């Protein structure tokens, strides 16, 4: 466990010093701000957090893989993976700490969006319960996205390729399945359940549903498991 603390600390610190992380955070906050003022902060609009959270969920499809792309690809490319893997740490400790490092940074980013809610609170009333559940949803979504991004980064030494794989996988799970379930009503029963948006929307509406909770948690664990296996398999080549 001490290893996980040390490794997580290092990963998180890297984000604090990384210009790419700041650029991503900047782009995310600017876009969120624009969407917020265009859709929610209008006279006569209901003071709901749902459209805001829904927009943030979509933005993270692109932002999270950019944050996660360096996690393992950089170690492969610079060779530091050799010093890491010959230190007395297990593969899953490495994966878990990388995940926690990016998740902490993500959480910080999410906390910054509280400012929008404060603005709503000036002009109207916000439902604290709904907002808290929506934030829980956003954290679960981020955890899942980060695990997919980490898996993509474990696959290749090229950071760009890792981000493309990450965005691709997330786009399939978020947008493509959404689109297909609208196009083919017959497949909706299955695709609707697989789709990230549907599950995330449950939280945005302020409903705490254990189905959706388990959906996000199990997929996160699954992709972390895959990332560990990919990392292990690198040794055998």
């Amino acid at each position, binding site marked *: 466990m001490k290893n996980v603390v040390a490794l997580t600390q290092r990963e998180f610190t890297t984000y604090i010093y990384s210009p790419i992380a700041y650029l991503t955070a900047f782009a995310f906050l600017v876009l969120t701000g624009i969407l917020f003022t265009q859709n929610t902060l209008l006279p006569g609009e209901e003071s709901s957090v749902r459209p805001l959270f829904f927009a943030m969920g979509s933005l993270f499809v692109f932002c999270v893989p950019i944050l996660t792309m360096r996690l393992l690809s950089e170690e492969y490319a610079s060779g530091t993976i050799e010093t890491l893997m*010959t230190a007395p740490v297990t593969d899953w400790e490495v994966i878990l700490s990388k995940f926690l490092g990016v998740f902490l940074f993500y959480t910080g980013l999410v906390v910054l969006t509280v400012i929008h809610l404060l603005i709503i609170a000036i002009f109207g009333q916000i439902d604290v319960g709904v907002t808290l559940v929506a934030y829980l949803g956003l954290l679960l979504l981020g955890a899942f996205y980060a695990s997919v991004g980490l898996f993509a980064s474990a696959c290749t030494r090229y950071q760009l390729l890792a981000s493309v794989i990450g965005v691709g996988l997330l786009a399939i799970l978020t947008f493509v399945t959404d689109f297909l379930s609208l196009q083919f009503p017959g497949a909706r029963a299955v695709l609707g359940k697989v789709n990230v948006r549907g599950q995330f929307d449950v939280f945005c509406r302020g409903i705490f549903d254990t189905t959706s909770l388990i959906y996000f948690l199990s997929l996160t664990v699954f992709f972390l498991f895959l990332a560990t296996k990919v990392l292990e398999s690198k040794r055998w080549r």
Partner: protein
Amino acid sequence: MIEVRDLTKFYGQRCAVDHVSFSVEEGEIVGFLGPNGAGKTTTLRILTCYMPATSGAASVAGHDVFTESLAVRQAIGYLPENVPMYTDMRVREYLNFRGKLRGLEKSARDAGIKRVAEQCWLGDFIERPIQQLSKGMRQRVGLADALLHDPKVLILDEPTVGLDPAQIRETRTLIKDLARRHTVILSSHILPEVEATCQRTIIIAGGKIVASGTPEQLKDRIRGGSRLIAEIHGPTSDVAGGVEKVNGVKHVAHTSNNGWVRLTIDTDKNADPREDIVKMSVQKGWRLREIRLEVGSLEEFFVQITAQQQMRDADRRRGTARPQEGAQA
């Protein structure tokens, strides 16, 4: 301390290490010598648990590298070939991080960093970002990292590459000092390096061990006997014929220039006919201006033995066998 049995590693179809077996005793410094691509780094990577072997077994400090990987990794300090490290960190920060990964407590880390900073002369740049360091400085940081937790076994892949001559000498001294408390295995493709630092040398070529032993043992095996060089002034045929009859002389080759005959004399094993040759030339009234014993260098042996290996490999590819020369010690 290190036991390796029948270690084999295939990268796809290509065999990088071919049934290698050796062992290293506690406190020994062993040099792993071979041309580029001989399988040195691969062997070291298997020993450090970076990659598993295709077949065979290896154990370090009593732990199997495959089944007790974590215990092995705790017991070793490893300096990889290209000294990869996190360039965004400062030296002290990096060493502190590496110390945590080895499970050192705060006080042990601080003491360890202080010790290795002295041993590896990090004094001036310990607070600087690794990014700004030269290759030689990074090499020293890498060595400091390997030493940080006072490991039983040190595995150093090309430890003096990129250092300046003064640092190379100091590093060699450091490694020799270390051997009192650690077992050291280091690889190199530079002979004098291994000759200067190691008690025992293992020469590897084409993924196979072609020879091993102390530098003296290896030198003894270069040729049956040794070779003399002499320059004598006198009638060419008389000089050559006379020397050939001296006891212990096997064969004489000669060239002459302005009445000076330059002789290359192969001698029988353990024979040293220098005195007899000098006596003879005095008796005959020839002038003698040079006579010396040429002892084969490890370098020659290295070239000879790796060339043999390459020839055998080529023969094998053609499907003909050549008897094994230069058997293992």
